């Protein structure tokens, strides 16, 4: 009790409340006569806990989350703080999968619905959509028992001329047995993107089957007489690998390949880069200078650009040159996944739809054995394996969305929620390190699919500017490569997600979605009225003229007047003026992280309340349309809660 929750931006905004620890969450409930603002944090989200030196006010405890939320608590008694600290350390480091939230999460769906949820994304359907199997590509079940490669799926697509013998032989020559397999096939020109891991070539080793495999890939594209082999590592690293008996393809040994290095740094560099960037985000009152220098020193945007550039190179090779590309890094499950999925996104507008994006992640990340557990710490493991690999991919998508606002069917919130759930372990999609492990754990029978959950709430994730017939949504996207370093922006929506004061106070997306809905409603009404008019005119003589009531389209949307009172509180612009009250009576209460009052737990995004018992699982869409944006169920807007708080306080 009597724990204080501090706000980074304003020390005046410390609130006092009670801290609870449950089996699955940390909960802070604010004291207050009418309001009981709650902040919920899933244990899975906790990245690190820091206990700082006791001060006069108490013992500070910082909880840093994987979704970039930072909770700064001050616990009055040092001993209590220590207890909390020890407990959290244990709770945040589960040892068994069964401890994870997804095994106890209950959205109250029946068995069939759960199954249906898992069937929403079907990779076979996807490969068929691409156009395989066909004359050039076949499906191979050589890995049906994971006997060839235990981090690959049971079904992979390989060139027609790749026999089982070639596949097996090639797999023995590849790190982790990850032989070249199809990631994306371009129907239009037969060019493809294949992925693998590094060859175990050392300085001079060769493997006939592996060479045949690459030939097979080339032959599967009659439109080109060579393929690109793209090694996404920096040249130096790749060369160093040779001393360990691994390395990269020698152009002399493999007929008709053009080899290319695209230097993307490894997981350790990326982990440190993110760390440095987060340190900048945690600075108290940084100057513009501090911020920009800090951002530069972290190198984060440079890495994002490197991944993007690689994707662009591959997309160009496929779309413009009609040449197939084989991509690998070291083990073919990190940089390879990033680069293949960025390239696919650029090439194929399907992946820019909501469903398509889910499919993309399922294909290039989940099925191809990206090590979710190791990378995102589902279970307690080696800290050196942790790295923000998929976060970087998600950011690449966001950067693209900023450059091409009409090209994606989904919005920023979709990306943020996906990132959130990769770490939350509330759903079973991103557990373990491979398909094999997930099957062994029976994930599909014991947990729920995130995709079904997101799909159900898809109205929240739509981009109002998306039109499937728009020029931006068709065909390949062509982002500029150089000179456009300045086009990469710092994603404060993600890395400062919970600091609402930093973001634009008004959401264009939400506004436009509301407009779209209202337009639709009005159009429907118009139709109905026109029908009625027609009927009336038929049944009566022309004397009784019934005017159809055309709604005045220019009337101000009442939707958004309430939004103006949304936490429009001035910051601390000056230290001199300490006498300023922190809120003006004319304006609403300020926003803060994760505001979930008891009232709106029902309508708010169940993602973050994760209060399984209260979750209705059925979104109340009607409240949005009729009252005109009255309660947008998004955990980010916190709009309802502000209003509720404001009205109550």
């Amino acid at each position: 009790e009597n724990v204080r929750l501090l706000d980074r931006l304003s020390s005046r905004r410390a609130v006092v409340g009670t801290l609870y620890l449950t089996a699955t969450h940390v909960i802070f409930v604010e004291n207050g006569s009418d309001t009981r603002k709650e902040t919920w944090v899933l244990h899975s989200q906790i990245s690190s806990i820091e206990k700082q030196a006791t001060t006069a006010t108490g013992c500070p405890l910082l909880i840093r989350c994987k979704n970039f939320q930072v909770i700064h608590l001050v616990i009055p008694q040092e001993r209590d703080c220590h207890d909390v600290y020890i407990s959290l350390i244990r709770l945040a480091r589960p040892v068994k999968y069964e401890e994870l939230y997804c095994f106890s999460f209950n959205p109250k769906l029946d068995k069939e619905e759960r199954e249906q949820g898992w069937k929403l994304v079907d990779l076979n359907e996807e490969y068929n959509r691409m156009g395989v199997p066909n004359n050039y590509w076949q499906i191979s079940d050589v890995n049906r028992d994971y006997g060839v490669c235990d981090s690959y799926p049971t079904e992979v697509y390989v060139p027609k001329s790749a026999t089982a013998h070639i596949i097996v032989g090639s797999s023995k020559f590849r790190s982790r047995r990850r032989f070249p397999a199809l990631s994306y096939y371009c129907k239009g020109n037969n060019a493809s993107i294949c992925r693998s891991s590094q060859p175990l070539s050392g300085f001079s080793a060769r493997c006939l089957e592996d060479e045949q495999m690459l030939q097979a890939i080339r032959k599967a594209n009659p439109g080109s007489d060579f393929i690109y082999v793209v090694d996404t590592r920096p040249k130096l690293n790749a060369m160093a690998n040779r001393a360990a008996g691994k390395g990269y393809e020698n152009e002399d040994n493999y007929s008709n390949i053009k080899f290319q290095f695209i230097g993307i740094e490894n997981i350790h560099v990326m982990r440190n880069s993110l760390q440095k960037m987060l340190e900048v985000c945690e600075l108290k009152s940084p100057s513009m200078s501090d911020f920009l220098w800090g951002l530069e020193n972290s190198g984060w945007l440079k890495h994002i650009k490197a991944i993007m550039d690689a994707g662009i190179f591959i997309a160009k090779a496929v779309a413009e040159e009609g040449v197939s590309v084989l991509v690998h890094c070291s083990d073919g499950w990190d940089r390879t996944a990033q680069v293949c999925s960025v390239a696919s996104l650029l090439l194929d507008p399907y992946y820019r739809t909501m469903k398509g994006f889910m499919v993309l992640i399922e294909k290039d990340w989940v099925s191809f054995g990206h090590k979710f557990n190791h990378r995102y710490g589902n279970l307690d493991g080696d800290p050196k394996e942790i790295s923000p690999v998929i976060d970087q991919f998600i950011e690449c998508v966001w950067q693209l969305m900023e450059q091409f606002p009409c090209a994606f069917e989904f919005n920023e919130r979709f990306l943020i929620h996906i990132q959130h759930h990769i770490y939350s372990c509330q759903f079973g999609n991103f557990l373990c390190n491979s398909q094999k492990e997930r099957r062994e754990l029976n994930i599909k029978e014991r947990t729920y699919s995130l995709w079904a959950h997101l799909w159900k709430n898809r109205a929240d994730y739509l981009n109002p500017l998306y039109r499937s017939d728009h020029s931006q949504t068709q065909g390949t996207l062509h982002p500029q490569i150089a000179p456009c370093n300045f086009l990469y922006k710092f994603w404060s929506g993600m890395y400062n997600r919970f600091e609402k004061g930093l973001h634009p106070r008004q959401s264009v997306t939400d506004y436009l979605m509301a407009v779209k809905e209202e337009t639709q409603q009005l159009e429907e009404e118009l139709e109905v009225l026109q029908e009625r008019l027609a009927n009336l005119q038929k049944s009566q003589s022309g004397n009784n003229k019934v005017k159809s009531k055309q709604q005045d389209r220019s009337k101000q949307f009442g939707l958004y007047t309430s939004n103006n009172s949304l936490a429009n509180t001035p910051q601390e612009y000056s230290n001199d003026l300490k006498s300023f009250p922190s809120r003006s009576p004319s304006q609403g209460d300020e926003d803060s992280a994760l505001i979930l009052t008891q009232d709106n737990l029902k309508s708010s995004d169940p993602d973050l309340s994760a209060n399984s018992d209260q979750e209705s699982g059925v979104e109340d869409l009607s409240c949005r349309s009729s009252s005109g944006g009255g309660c947008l169920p998004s955990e980010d807007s916190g709009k309802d809660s502000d209003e509720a708080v404001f009205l109550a306080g």
Partner: protein
Amino acid sequence: LLRSSQPLTGPNRRRCREDEQLLGTILAEGERGFVVDTRSAQAAKQARMGGGGTEPKSSYPRWRRLHRALERGRPLQESFARLVEACGEPGPSVERWLGRLEGSRWLSHVQAALSTACLAAQCLDREGCSVLVHGAEGTDTTLLVTALAQLILEPSCRTLEGFQGLLEREWIQAGHPFQLRCARSASCHGRAKQEAPLFLLFLDCVWQLSRQFPLSLEFGEQLLLTLFDNAYASAYGTFLCNNERERSLCKLKESTHSLWAWLNQPEEKQKYLNPLYSHNPLVIWPSVEPQSIQLWQGFFLRWIRPSQHLDEAQAEIRRLVEGS
């Protein structure tokens, strides 16, 4: 909200009864006021040597002085030039770009300007106190602060018409020396001592506001770009000369056309209106955290990056709001 130039206190701490009386009349019985001096305390003190200075506490007991150093003059011009140069250079490295952005210090100036304007606005709105803003001459950073403060506080300044009125009052009639400040723009090397992009800084700050409150300004980026263009080179007389006196001597009103008249024509006006606008009666308080202040790409990358996709997005927004 008041503005002036610096008091001519001088090294001998001169007093002026009339000035003290004037400031006295502004405050009601028992009220206090704030003086926002856009120079650092150091600079303001040094100004005394040149005959200028600040309002001494003893002579103006009910006015509390706050210093917020805002850049002006040559350093601001250099900041601008450096940024433009950094944007134009096609280097491959993202890293160095951020360093160059920081090195230009342009965003720091934007942040400082917004922050000072917010401070003034806070004094007015939250403390209910009168505020006097001045720098040295009262023609540069002073106007920046008073104009921005009004945009923050006053919803009527955020309409297209109101904004034009704001510009007329706080920049043109208030005597910002456009002719001296807006002669050559970023390509200006060397001599031009009086050249400084204060007006651009103002427009950048307005853009920052529009980014943070996309529904609250009746006008869009296109207007800001047009205003910038016309401040430097124009077919209209609105931004000519340095002050009202010069305009009167030139017989400006008789011999030129007004930019506002042209802008306000129905066909032209359409281009400048923000389709997302919806009247916001409240004060809009921007965030001045570094993450909230972004590079005004529409201006600085105007001729560098293709705007096709963003233009399409704008068109789509229009289409959605205005109905197909």
